């Protein structure tokens, strides 16, 4: 199939804040889609989103989309794959969306190895609801519902996904678009459940640009072997989403081939 250069913008008014991490996630995805267009026709892409600032991405990109419910993008995506396995289904979800409301679906989608891609816009705060603490906010996070600091430690989505059976586990940074674009491409091509936790600064409620700019490093620069499960786990544990410093690896932590849910269900 010959790639047709297509404008991927719907023309809808964009309502993200200036410098919001969502812009770069959208750019990285759009870029990935354009590059993949040689192999995957545009009509075979389906975007599924949850509810949150991240979800607006489906209004902006002119591809098939299902603007689902808060936390429920993954079962919706699974249904789409069940109906038509030819489609490339990419879920755009938020951290409150999928690490709180819809966490059961995240675990089960990984467990099943459903052939979908999950991109988590992880700004570690509830932003569309104007600033409450989220599952990956650091302990002590001062949000509107926790003015004296969050009483909970954050969860580590990477170790969660590794222990749930995800066959592709990655972390990207919205500040590094080309790196993120490459991860997204790999994730879409990957046959099976691919998961990308994207560190996304929120300029309104949790601006983490400085933290990430100072601490992220590319796993591939250190010769990381993504087929080694134990190594992936130890790399995932390197940063606990709580400490304000330390090394934060980005890239593909783990990648393995396994029969997909769609293949097994017949």
């Amino acid at each position, binding site marked *: 199939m010959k790639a047709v250069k297509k404008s991927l913008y*719907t023309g*809808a008014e964009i309502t993200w804040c200036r410098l919001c991490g969502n812009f770069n996630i959208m750019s990285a995805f759009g870029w990935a889609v354009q590059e993949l267009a040689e192999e995957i*026709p545009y*009509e*075979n892409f*389906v975007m*599924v989103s949850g*509810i949150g600032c991240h979800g*607006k991405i*489906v*209004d902006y990109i*002119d*591809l*098939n*989309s*299902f*603007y*689902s*419910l808060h936390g*429920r993008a993954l*079962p*919706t*995506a*699974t*249904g*789409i*794959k*069940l*109906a*038509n396995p*030819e*489609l490339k289904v990419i879920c755009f979800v938020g951290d409150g969306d999928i690490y709180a409301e819809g966490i*059961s*679906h995240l*675990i*089960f989608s990984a467990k099943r190895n459903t052939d979908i891609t999950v991109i988590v816009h992880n700004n570690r705060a509830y932003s569309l609801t104007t600033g409450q603490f989220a599952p990956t906010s650091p302990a002590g996070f001062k949000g509107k519902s926790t003015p004296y600091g969050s009483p909970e430690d954050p969860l580590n989505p990477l170790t969660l996904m590794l222990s749930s059976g995800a066959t592709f586990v990655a972390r990207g940074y919205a500040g590094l678009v080309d790196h993120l674009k490459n991860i997204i491409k790999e994730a879409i091509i990957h046959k099976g459940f691919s998961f990308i936790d994207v560190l996304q600064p929120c300029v309104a409620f949790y601006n983490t640009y400085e933290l990430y700019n100072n601490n992220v490093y590319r796993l591939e620069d250190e010769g990381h072997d993504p087929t080694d499960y134990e190594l992936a786990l130890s790399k995932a544990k390197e940063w606990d989403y709580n400490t304000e410093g330390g090394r934060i690896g980005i890239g593909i932590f783990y990648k393995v081939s396994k029969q997909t849910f769609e293949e097994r*269900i*017949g």
Partner: protein
Amino acid sequence: MKFFGAYTYLSIVRFLYGLSVKELYFKGKGFVMDLSIIIGGKAGAGIKEAGRMLAKVLTKMGYHVFVYVDYPSLIRGGHNFVTIRFSEEKISSVKKKADIIVATDGRSIKAHKYDAKDSTVWIINEKERFDGAIRAPFKEVAPGFFKSSSILGVLLRILGIPLDEGLPLIMSLPQKEKNESIYREAYKSVREIFKVKKIKEKVGDVITGNEAIALGAVDGGLDVYIAYPMTPASPVLHYLAKHKSDFGIKVVQPENEIAVINMALGVSYAGKRSMVGTSGGGFALMTEALSLSGMAEIPLVIYEAQRAGPSTGVPTYTAQSDLLFSLFAGHGDFPRVVFAPGDPQEAYLLARVSLNIAWKFQVPVILLGDKHVGESLYTVRLERNREVEEPKLWDGKGEYGRYRFSEDGVSPLAFPGEEGVVVKVSSYEHDERGITVEDALSVKKMQEKRLKKGKFIKKHLLNSNYTVSISGEKNPEKVILTWGSNKGVVEDIAGKLGFKVIRPLLLEPFPSERIKRELEGAKLILSIECSSSGQFVKLLNMNGIYPTDCIKKYDGRPFFSDELEEILGEYV
């Protein structure tokens, strides 16, 4: 049955057990054989299986059979029973009082003491003592699962049915040699009391409402069935999972009911027909996505098999108390369709219709059943026909918009994967392309599009064949208004007592005008339902229909025909 045969039968019965003639009521020249048998025992003792096998033998001999299944929510122990009623005439209910009681354990004797009449034949486990009872070797001959074979053997001999009639069923069981010897031994252990003869060719198959729903859905074009286990809807999941290859469908059991319904919406969005099944608690979890189905205009069929609530309630028992919940579940305004089948025939038909209606109008359709119609065994001749109507599809002209305004409010469908088409659906209020809008005019226009569609649905359905069922006496002075699984018991006795029966099959949109027309001239209007707060009466009142009196049952059990006959007798 010829009169002579009937007379002979009566003489034998009266000679042996002094069974009163009243039990076998006369009709025309002959009399009608109508016997009820209770089989009781521990859960896991093969009680249900025995009931099913006996029902199959009796239908093969030309009888109409109805089997009520009563079991608690546990796997081993406790007390289970089935009531098998068979008759030469069409019946779809059971009586509380039985002619034969088979008590395979001591507890069953106590449990069914009040289900016996003076003339009841008791068959008990040989370890027990009970004056006048026939003792049969249930335990020694047949431990555990093989009890069903011994129960069948004993009952066929008691009923005077040849051993060979039950043999094909026994031979289809696992470990058939062992089952066969148990069956033969049990058959020999008792003597013949009744003379149940083959009266004609088979009048139908033994089928549950749940099986009929599964078949109806398949014939309505079902592609994917998704459900989380929940009694009493689970048999549909089991049946479809077992036969999925024959039906060419996919069957999925996700992590919870929320995943179930969202997955189903994903399936429909991508162009395949989906259906989900659950009971009240699971349906409660689905309501957010029910509203999504309404907003995003994605076709979906929900089978809601009611059980006794509130909350976990009495999980394996029946009720009609999710009626108003089904009509009003979900936030916001959106059109929906609710159907309520009264027997497997209607369950099959309405399941098939539901799939087509959901796709024709791109709305959620709720098929509201209950444990009684779902799990009871009926004698039905089901004529299957695959009927899959093509929905309104996009003609490929111009730019595609998923929510294009149209005269009837229904926008043409296209699916992801079609070249040149971008299909955007949304849980947010949206414009014709499916992109989020919040301005007053756009919001109003899209609300009105859905309203228009609701009116179109109403017009279509109120003129369809699936609105109201009328039966019983033509004389309209005494009328029974009822719904759902009460069909069987009400229709079994209403005609005899001179009642006309009006029963809506369609609960939303509600066929109130038709019902009002049918009620013209009625002096006594009785509503019958299984809900303590009278939800059906509330629905009738909302539509300007006011019954004279309301008969309610809310102990988890369906109305029994002798029980209801007594209640109705007070109004006659």
